[in-house]
């Protein structure tokens, strides 16, 4: 690393240039922290400390807790137990089930929400009357609290809720959407798709608008039709944004909690118990913070693994 040394205003000693000569580069390490770098460090320090204290330190502490037995009520503090928590996870049927539920939840929400959001983004990526209202209306669900949205959907799905009232009017039998093992997770998924649609659409719309128009014109000159333009211009141009959307959706969906807590509390018969919901019960209902931390780090490993796989899968094709 080298630094630029400005002329000394008083012509004092030092490596300052004389007579307006261009500044010369030096590589004296003692000078590194004297000027711009020190100022830069000071500017970065508050944010760096924030990340260190409030984000990295708790994560590190959580990792340490995962190797301990710890109840926050206990006066003795965490007791180290090695990898016992992780070994226990291997035979915990509830944890295995929650991983499957979480995987199914991600698998059934992700493709639909990305495909539907892409369709909507293509639809609103053209000028027509009311396009602004349409875009805003689709984005609104994303800015409302997930818990509040879940409360509304709890009523929609209830025995006397909107959907059953409509079924009643149509002369169809009412359904127990959230009380049936076969429909509960699907019902939660529908709500999550509706919720995620707007934000994904906005991101993909931004991606669409960053694709140079010249590429479409060139494609048309070469005789490409609508499908050809989509296949060979839109999709490759949208790939970076698609990668981002898919990765972020995996991260958020795999951490599904609020909607499960409000809609089903993990039931019926554990059919909607996601890993995050299980972590909540272990940590805050049963005070087993060490075991819950181990669950959290296994979930973290799964999320990181699948996110990397999806990124490599999508970006790999680009190569």
């Amino acid at each position, binding site marked *: 690393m080298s630094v630029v040394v400005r002329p000394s205003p008083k012509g004092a000693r030092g490596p300052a240039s004389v007579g307006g000569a261009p500044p010369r580069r030096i590589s004296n390490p*003692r000078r590194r922290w004297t000027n711009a770098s020190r100022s830069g460090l000071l500017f970065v320090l508050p944010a760096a*400390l924030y990340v*260190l*204290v409030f984000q990295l*330190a*708790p994560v590190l*502490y959580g990792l340490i807790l995962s190797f301990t037995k710890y*109840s*926050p*009520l*206990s*006066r003795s*503090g965490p007791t180290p137990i090695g990898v016992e928590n992780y070994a226990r996870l291997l035979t915990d049927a509830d944890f295995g089930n929650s991983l499957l539920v979480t995987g199914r939840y991600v698998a059934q929400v992700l493709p639909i929400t990305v495909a539907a959001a892409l369709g909507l983004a293509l639809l609103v990526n053209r000028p027509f009357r009311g396009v602004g209202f349409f875009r805003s209306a689709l984005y609104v669900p994303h800015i409302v609290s997930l818990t509040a949205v879940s409360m509304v959907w709890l009523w929609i799905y209830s*025995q*006397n809720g909107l959907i059953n009232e409509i079924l009643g009017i149509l002369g169809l*039998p009412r359904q*127990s959407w959230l*009380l049936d*093992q076969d429909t509960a997770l699907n019902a939660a998924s529908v709500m999550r798709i509706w919720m995620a649609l707007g934000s994904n659409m906005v991101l993909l719309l931004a991606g669409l608008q960053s694709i140079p128009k010249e590429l479409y014109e060139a494609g048309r000159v070469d005789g490409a039709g609508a499908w050809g333009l989509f296949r060979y211009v839109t999709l490759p141009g949208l790939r970076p944004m698609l990668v981002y959307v898919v990765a972020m959706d995996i991260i958020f969906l795999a951490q599904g909690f609020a909607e499960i807590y409000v809609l089903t*509390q993990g*039931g*019926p*018969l*554990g059919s909607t118990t996601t890993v995050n919901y299980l972590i909540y*019960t272990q940590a*805050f*209902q*049963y*005070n087993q913070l060490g075991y819950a931390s181990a669950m959290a780090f296994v979930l973290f490993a799964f999320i990181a693994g699948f996110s990397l796989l999806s990124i490599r899968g999508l970006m790999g094709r680009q190569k």
Partner: protein
Amino acid sequence: MQAMKRHRLFTGTVTIAAVSAFVLAGCAGPTAGSGTSPGAVPTEGGKISVWFPGTDPTEIALVTKKIVPNFEKATGAQVSVTYVDWSNISTKLNAAFAAGTAPDVFGHGPAAVADFVTNKRVEPLTNYIQQLSEKDRSDMSSALQGGQVNGVQYLVPLSMQGSLIMYNAADFTAAGLDPNKPPTTWEGVRAAAKQLTKRDASGAITRSGLLLPSQPIGRQQTFAALLLSNGGTQLNKEQTAAAFDSQQGVAALDYFTSLFNGPDAVSAGLGANYINTPTAQQPIVLGTASMEFQTPNGMQQIVAANPKMDLRVMMPPKFEGADKGYAMGGAGPGLMINADSKHKALAWKFIQYMIAPDTSVEYTQGIGAVPPRSSAAETSYVKNSPILKAFVKAAPQFVPNPNVPGWVQIRDTMDKFLEQALNKKMSSKDALTQAAAAVDKILKANG
């Protein structure tokens, strides 16, 4: 260069140590309390913090605008009151205990007491209770029992709780049943429910003859009530092992399961949480149920909102051959003193004020609960309410859940297997056998 490296290393080490100390400071727990004896701290003046569970605006207004200001006026003390919603009270208390910032006095349900006791977080109150008059102790004896762990008082209940069957007298009459002679056995309740149940052309139930709670937590309480009314118990006498996997337990669970399943089912909506729905959406109000389990508060709200309906309360039924019918209940939420509080005398003074006869009636009347004192039966609040009269009459038949460490996990474990049986995924016997094995493990792990 070496000096600079050492300087950097030192600076880095100090920074990491400082940051770690700062972060971990919030995780360190305080040392055990000194166990101040009652009356050691002057009660004139002083300041205490109190956490109440709940979000009921009526209760919050009553406590913060009337009861606490009156206490402050009478004692010259300052009381800082915080209401924490039920779903977060355990989490926030745990965090506060870990950080050493827990309040002097806090409220919770009896099910949580044993865990606080195991971790020495709450002050034993037996000595304080002994200082009450004999009359007071006798007046509150039913309630106080529910706040004890191994015979030691830790929680002082502010109200009684429980559930009884509420029934629609008009439905009884229309079905040819006598509303003045409601069934006294669970077999009789089942037979009445069969007559009260209505179905549509497809055979689907449109009006449940009987609705018992079958949602999470609710189903464990329903099962426990049926088990007790059949002569069984949830744990053994020493509270060291599960005892619900008995013949009585299997019969009770078979009964519960049969209500929702088969051609003779009398209940619809397995797993639905009707108890917490708004008054206007209660099944008995909508006409989709003729009998339902309800809390005193819920019943009073239903009756107040539907004065034209003839709604009555049934005493806890028993199974044929059993001695007595029981219902889950007993001591309701109450107050405990933090073992680390530096103001224990003032904290006790506050609890004493809350359970004083006048304050107790004022508080329970304000929140629509059953008073913890048996003498409250003579107050106009109870005398003028047929519902409260019924609950006070049934008070000796209310039985609380066992106060053992790890109870919440035990309850949820039982709940999980009960759900399997209710959904016919396994037989009652298998569900209870497996639940008992899992519960025994939890009891063992919690010492």
